[in-house]
């Protein structure tokens, strides 16, 4: 009952490379899937739409970045720019009268095209220089968004998104919007879970470990870099479009600035590079942290009878956000995903510790 490895014997490669090769993992996944489906009936709609929905969408975004940074090992500091491309093209398409299903697809493909442009710098450089180029491209994209009225609707303007609809049904209820976000997040997660079992996933990991070595083994490293950038940009584009369609309801350049790029990267790193469950944890931590920190400081200030200025309060979450990144990298550079894996490994053989290999 406790010993979760009991009865698990893989006698063939096929059974060893199953998506869940331990029943406990599968059971946990099914449990959380059911919990996610039941969430609108359990969680008050205020929490559902202001915490759970953005969490799921940002998790999908983090998973997309994890694909290119965690698996293909390519640094990407312009992820928010790619999300912006998807969001703006989808909203423009939807405004033009294209059904949302296709508008999302258009957003994803447009992002893919722009995202592949990012990849062409990966042809020449990698590591630090790739990071700097993607950062510069993010600034270019910011500039384009704020300086082209045709895209953003004017400087300091925002673009109203048409009501989200799927299969001709307008989706306006809180539960409906939640299910859209939930569905997308589950789709991305299934894709990522399967990716590591495919040749593509293994090729990406080979490129991450050492691209020259991968090339010697016959893995066309540039091709796989472009694929990684394009696939992650596709996810980013649809995620950005859904973020606007189901959460912000309007698109503005400030939603996709460089600090957002850094935020998504922070989710990936705090969650753990290449860890899927870690992306869920990382997104949750980064999204919840500012509110929690402000509560704690407000409570502390009350306790100690200190008068903290509004400005101080406004900047404390930022300082805490930075501190969180620093502490995580110092204490557990592999992130929350690694912490989860440690606990899981411990519980996997509990109470028979002597079986540990």
């Amino acid at each position, binding site marked *: 009952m406790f010993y979760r490895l009991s009865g698990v014997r893989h006698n063939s490669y096929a059974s060893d490379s199953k998506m869940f090769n331990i029943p406990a993992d599968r059971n946990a996944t099914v449990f959380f899937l059911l919990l996610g489906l039941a969430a609108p009936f359990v969680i008050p709609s205020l929490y559902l739409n202001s915490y759970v929905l953005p969490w799921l969408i940002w998790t999908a975004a983090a998973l997309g970045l994890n694909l290119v940074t965690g698996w293909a090992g390519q640094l990407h500091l312009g992820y928010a720019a790619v999300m912006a491309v998807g969001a703006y093209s989808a909203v423009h398409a939807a405004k033009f009268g294209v059904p949302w299903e296709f508008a999302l697809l258009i957003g994803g493909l447009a992002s893919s095209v722009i995202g592949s442009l990012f990849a062409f710098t990966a042809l020449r*450089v990698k590591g630090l220089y790739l*990071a*700097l180029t993607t950062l510069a491209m993010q*600034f270019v994209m910011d500039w384009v968004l*704020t300086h082209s009225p045709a895209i953003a609707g004017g400087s300091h303007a925002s673009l109203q998104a048409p009501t989200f609809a799927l299969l001709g049904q307008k989706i306006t209820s809180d539960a409906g919007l939640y299910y859209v976000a939930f569905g997308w997040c589950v789709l991305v997660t299934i894709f990522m879970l399967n990716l590591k079992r495919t040749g593509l996933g293994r090729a990406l990991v080979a490129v991450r470990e050492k691209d020259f070595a991968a090339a010697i083994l016959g893995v066309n490293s540039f091709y796989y870099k472009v694929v990684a950038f394009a696939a992650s940009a596709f996810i980013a584009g649809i995620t950005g479009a859904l973020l606007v369609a189901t959460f912000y309801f309007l698109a503005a350049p400030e939603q996709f600035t460089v600090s957002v790029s850094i935020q998504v990267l922070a989710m990936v790193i705090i969650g753990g590079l290449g860890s899927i469950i870690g992306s869920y944890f990382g997104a949750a931590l980064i999204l919840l942290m500012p509110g929690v920190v402000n509560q704690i400081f407000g409570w502390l200030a009350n306790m100690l009878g200190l008068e903290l200025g509004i*400005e*101080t309060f406004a900047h404390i979450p930022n300082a805490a956000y930075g*501190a969180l990144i*620093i502490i995580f990298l110092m204490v557990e550079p592999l992130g929350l995903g690694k912490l989860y894996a440690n606990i899981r490994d411990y519980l996997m053989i509990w109470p028979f510790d002597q079986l540990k290999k």
Partner: protein
Amino acid sequence: MDWIFLSELTVNGALTGLLYSLVAIGLVLIYKSSAVPNLAQGALTMTGAYVVLAFSHNLGWPLWVAIPLAAVIMFLLGMGIERVALRRLAGRPIVMILMMTMGIDIFLRGTTLAIWGGSSRSVNLGVSYDPFFLGDMLLSRIHIVGAAVAIALFVGFLLFFRTRLGIRLRAISDDYLASWSIGISVERGVGLSWGLASVVAVATGVIWGEVQGVDQSLSVLLLKGLTVAVLGGLDSIVGAIVAGIILGILESVGADFLDPFVGGGSRDLIVAAVLILTVMIRPHGLFGRHDIERV
């Protein structure tokens, strides 16, 4: 386009560019010794300026006390950052090191603003705001002072790298494993370079704080400093100066040509374009060392 206006743009651009070099020198010092791209240099600059202000405005001490004192504090802060945060990341993937410096950047910005507030303040360096006439050209005095500081720091570091300590730092940047094996304390050298970069950040913060006021926008200098550092070669101090002048001129003359077409604000675009083109065409920059990677 008359020639006086163009030469004025060029000279002012070059002076502004030398101010960018100040940021770049800090970046280069750290990259040279430890191959860490310090994305927190902008935030360090801002912190340096705020520390100076804390002494000169909040405590009312004269600037000639406040600036050296701030330099000492920032030196210790820089060494502390290296000791606490960066040292244990040595050998980790570059993405973690980058993220660490970005985390430090966010943390420093948040902390300084939480303590001292975000409203813009001036350093009151005592440099007159009257323009300086060179022939028919109008030049800004504070830019001249800043450019002089940049040149002075540059000469100072050139001399420093000829001292015993400087030679040690050069050995570390050349090959840290070899330096280790002949008894040079690599850790101390890297810590020292972080300290020096933080002192440079104080100078940068004071000059830029006088140019545009001390507030959060000081940390935005990072992109320009980074572009200058990459253009000059991330491990070359000469490169930082030369590239600063080049970028400054490109930016000021280019923006003047481009602005009418795109409706203003093309400076940032030029900077980003220079960064992208440099990395695409010549990643090791004008004077940087070209490392060859082996499997």
